[in-house]
């Protein structure tokens, strides 16, 4: 009983981390229809920015969110404006460009740091609390709380603010949205900026948990893509809940099957999902079919 509880809890907390990375990715994917391969690298940049803020300015990793989010928000806007917007109707070239960005960012950090591994040790980072018989790491609980808050705020914003409604309108039908007077390019820049900012925030929240390396983005990005497909294109609740499904699967498979096969287990779920319900749990029907259609 204690073991199962411990496995489930670790799956829940791992799922929180996956949701955290997937929410920004799914926002970009769902609205702009860009497969942003560099999203994991945005998370990595967020981690390094947090590390620099901690070491140079002595800012706590959690406070650094206030710095890292705007930083990556601006970076995201620049990427969208000067790279992706120019490739708007060329999905293959967008894949190409974001993959180039991935290589560029990953190896830029590698070249600058020389590949040294960094980590942050704050009083909080090694703290654990007891839940029944199980010890739970505090930074992971904070990440879980943060992703829950982000999901709620984002979902509320998309439903109730004018800007959020514009984002949803653009996601549903770009041309109709333009005819209604929505500035599509501006909405894309905002969406990409927020998506990148969320990746930066994820990076700040992950910094106390993981050792930094230039390749760390790769650890999350595949899980995040699986979450996106599982949860549904462009759906915030989908990304949130999909993260937990993937995290739980990984934890259960890792404990009961074999640790080295855990990714294969979530892939099996992913494939079954693609066959049974390709739109994902919360996706709009047909979204997977029109993903690449030129809308203009």
């Amino acid at each position: 009983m204690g073991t199962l509880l411990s496995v489930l809890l670790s799956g829940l907390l791992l799922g929180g981390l996956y949701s955290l990375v997937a929410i920004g990715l799914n926002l970009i994917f769902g609205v702009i229809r860009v497969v942003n391969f560099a999203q994991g690298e945005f998370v990595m940049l967020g981690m390094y920015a947090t590390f620099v803020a901690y070491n140079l300015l002595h800012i706590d990793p959690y406070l650094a969110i206030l710095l890292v989010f705007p930083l990556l928000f601006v970076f995201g806007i620049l990427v969208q404006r000067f790279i992706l917007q120019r490739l708007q109707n060329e999905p293959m070239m967008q894949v190409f460009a974001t993959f180039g960005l991935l290589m560029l960012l990953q190896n830029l950090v590698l070249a600058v740091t020389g590949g040294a591994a960094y980590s942050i040790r704050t009083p909080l980072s090694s703290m654990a609390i007891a839940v029944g018989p199980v010890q739970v790491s505090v930074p992971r609980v904070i990440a879980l709380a943060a992703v829950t808050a982000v999901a709620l705020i984002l979902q509320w914003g998309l439903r109730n603010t004018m800007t959020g409604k514009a984002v949803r309108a653009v996601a549903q039908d770009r041309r109709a949205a333009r005819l209604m007077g929505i500035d599509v390019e501006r909405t894309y820049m905002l969406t990409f900026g927020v998506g990148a900012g969320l990746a930066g925030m994820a990076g700040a929240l992950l910094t106390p948990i993981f050792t930094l390396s230039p390749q760390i983005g790769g650890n999350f990005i595949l899980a995040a893509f699986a979450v996106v497909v599982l949860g549904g294109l462009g759906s915030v609740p989908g990304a949130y809940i999909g993260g937990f499904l993937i995290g739980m699967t990984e934890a259960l498979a890792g404990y009961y099957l074999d640790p080295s096969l855990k990714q294969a287990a979530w892939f099996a779920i992913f494939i079954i999902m693609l066959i049974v319900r390709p739109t994902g749990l919360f996706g709009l029907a047909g979204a997977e079919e029109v993903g690449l259609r030129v809308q203009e």
Partner: protein
Amino acid sequence: MPRIRTFRQELPPLALTAVLLAALVGLYSGDNFTLNILATTFLFAGLATAWNILGGFGGQFSLCHGVFFAEGAYLTANMVLGAGLSPWWSLAPAAGLAAATAVLISWPAFRLRGPFFAIATMTFSEVVLVLANYFESITGGPQGMRVPFRPGWQNMIFTGRIAYAWLMLGFLLLALIVSLVLLRSRLGYYLQAVRDNEAAAEASGIDVLRTKLMAFAISAAVTGVGGSLFVMYVRIVDPPTLLTLSDVGVRFALIALIGGVGTGYGPLFGALLVVPLEAWLRAELGAYAPGSNLVVLGAVLVLAALFFKRGLVGAFQSLPLPARWTGRLART
């Protein structure tokens, strides 16, 4: 209305390409460093040409071609190490195994379009990487597999580098022939119709799924053969060498895109630019800071996406040259 181009009309430029590339090998016949680069260039040109069959002619952005590559490599390594057979016997089974895998995964994969197809195939590739590390009896696990150095024609292992350059040139020509025959066949025209407008193609009576599936299988088969040759060329393979996305699966696509996606010779031009550039950057910059060569390459990719959307072939076509010179290279 112009007559439809047939494979017969592709023969003269193909022969010219073969002669030029053979002359290149002859020119550098004493220079082992350059011969190595040439062999790698031809291998990756062939692999990118194979990717281009599905990705370029068919418009399906597959990121799992590394899987077929690895299958070929592991099959050959196992046949050579386990059964003591000559690697030449493994080429046809490698093609068959890769094609069969492509058919199997296309059932779920072709339900998906566009970016969803790319993501699904990418995830597939990553999981095969996990499995390759796990099933040590087939793949040697993380330690990898080593083919002992026993030179000889029947072992496909040679002391001189020039033999590998010829071998890879042969593979490249095979890939080009398969690709051009397909491009000028009924299936090839179906495939391009599906790429350009799937709904219209289906309405005209084209069996869309069958067309994509055939292209996927052919593309995978050629890639599998490339994997077989690769393992005999480097003689030591481990899962990351065969299945890392940025080194293998995505690389085929990037080479094809830089050269000119969907054109017959684009992938070859892409490889002629990218592979030597990579080797040069690694030699020139790799020593200063780790990864700085890849920083440059990443920047090249972003810039190519922005300014050379139709690749080298597209850039060449837009030069102010007579149309009968420029058109021949790339007309699809």
